[in-house]
């Protein structure tokens, strides 16, 4: 159609004199497609590279057959074997896992109960109570660490007890800073709960307990699992508070690694760290999977 062509030509000739920068040519990137712009991709890519490069090199060099640890000399498992044969390291690792498991169980139960209380009930002084529950989250780790040190020293908490009681003080401290996190996660999950589901169950004849078991608990579950995994990682990762609570015969993995790092940087530490990183990444993966919102639950 000739008419169309002429309009087309007019538009093109009018567009031509406008400033046309070379990077704008032939682009279908929309005005708000910032993520598709090359400079944005470059910046974000570079930042992610900087975020991951140290950890990935740390992991790669755990397989490096060189003590100098800077030039790639060949692939080896020998530092893993060395770490495995390091009794102190293995004991610390076992301690860390034991503490993490017990502290996770306790903080998940306590945290979920606190979350349910805050979600369900209105009571005098609630904002203050919520602030109180958030204290272990906001207080600097070092302050909480020294508080634990002072507390256990002052009340004369028995040391040198048989396993696993010798880990009790560390475990208590870990529960104290973990369960508020669990409470936050579970409560966040519960805010998405449609109260009409609970009312519907009661309306259909379910008792309080049946309503809790059949409707509230299944909804809560992903939050509880995510909270538990968070508590597990927090406990496994904690250095500062444990550093002040642990004694010479109750060394956890991070405390052990710390003393090794202070001494020297060795591929053995890389190997042990790699194992811990892999465990953490797997736990995080599961946490993410459970935290994903249940489809259709929001409406």
């Amino acid at each position, binding site marked *: 159609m000739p008419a169309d062509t002429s309009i087309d030509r007019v538009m093109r000739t009018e567009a031509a004199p406008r400033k046309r920068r070379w990077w704008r040519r032939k682009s279908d990137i929309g005005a708000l497609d910032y993520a598709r712009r090359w400079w944005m991709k470059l910046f974000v890519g570079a930042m992610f590279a900087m975020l991951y490069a140290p950890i990935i090199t*740390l992991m790669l060099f755990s397989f490096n057959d060189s003590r100098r640890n800077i030039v790639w000399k060949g692939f080896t498992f020998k530092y893993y074997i060395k770490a495995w044969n390091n009794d102190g390291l293995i004991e610390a690792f076992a301690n860390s896992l034991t503490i993490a498991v017990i502290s996770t169980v306790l903080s998940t139960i306590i945290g979920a109960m606190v979350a349910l*209380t805050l979600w369900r009930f209105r009571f005098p002084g609630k904002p203050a109570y919520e602030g109180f529950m958030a204290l272990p989250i906001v207080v*600097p780790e*070092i302050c909480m660490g020294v508080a634990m040190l002072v507390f256990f020293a002052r009340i004369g908490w028995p040391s040198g007890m048989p396993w696993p009681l010798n880990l009790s003080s560390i475990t208590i401290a870990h*529960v104290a800073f973990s369960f508020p996190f669990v409470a936050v996660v579970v409560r966040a999950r519960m805010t998405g709960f449609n109260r009409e589901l609970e009312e519907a169950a009661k309306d259909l004849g379910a008792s309080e307990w049946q309503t809790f078991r059949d409707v509230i608990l299944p909804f809560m579950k992903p939050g509880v699992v995510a909270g538990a995994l968070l508590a597990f990682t927090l406990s496994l990762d904690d250095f500062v508070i444990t550093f002040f609570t642990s004694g010479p015969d109750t060394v956890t993995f991070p405390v052990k*690694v710390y003393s090794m790092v202070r001494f020297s940087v060795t591929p053995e530490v890389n190997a042990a760290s790699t194992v811990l990183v892999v465990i953490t990444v797997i736990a995080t993966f599961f946490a993410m999977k459970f935290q994903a919102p249940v489809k259709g639950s929001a409406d």
Partner: protein
Amino acid sequence: MESWKTNRFVFWVMSLPGTFWLLVFFLVPMSLVWIMSFGEKTGILTIDITWTLENYIRSTETVYLEIIWKSVWVSALATIACLLIAYPIAFAISFAPNRWKPWLLLAVILPFWINLLIRTYALIAVFRTRGFVNFSLEWLWDGANSILNFVGLGQFQLLGERFEALPLLYNNGAVIAGIVYVFMPFMVLPLYANIEKLDKSYLEASLDLGASHVRTFWSIVVPLTMPGIISGIILVFIPALGSFLIPDLLGGTNAQMIGNVIERQFKAANDWPFGSALSFLLMYATFGALALRAVLSREGGGMNA
């Protein structure tokens, strides 16, 4: 939500364990430290609570004031660096295609889950004299020198006689880099939450009305995401101020922060009352920062972070 009176039994059973634990294993220890900060050391293992203010007065001595001041500016610089790096990242994630978002977010959060000690340790390998940065620089230096030799300028030694490794570790710069590296997720997440919440039609309206992208960013995006910016700043600044491990491993003797001084009082120096006082000064600073955030977010007029 119902009144606790409707079901007292359930209320007490549910709230008791958490309340008990926090009272006995958090509030009591904290109170002990607080009381001890007014105490005097009378022997190697004995401490008298004399309600003296001596420990607080001692913390205003120049040597400690310098460390407190350094802790503040190191944390502040690191927080600003975090903000400058995290904002574009949060912005890009928020404008990325939906199927990419969870993965990009995961990529930001994942390092946060990895042990702090391991991440700090990984940085040592990067920064130390024979670390990756210096190794790469040396390689570049060698390369540049051989090019100079090739073009016949080798005898002038333009790049110095030999490669000097940069002192990257055991200084304030390393501490700042470490804080930025470790606490970056704390900055990205609140920023992302705010940018994501932002109705993108505000941006379109601004562009439609003739504002440039830069102008739109400064006059629309930044004001509307201010609650996220404030949250992020507080979330990074507070743990940065109290950090112990990062300056301990990356800082060396001249780059100590208040956390290291506290640790020394409780371990090597064995002066618990003074350590307690310093510890509570840090706590007050933390609460001050939190109060500041509460005030700022209230002034933001309903735009809650």
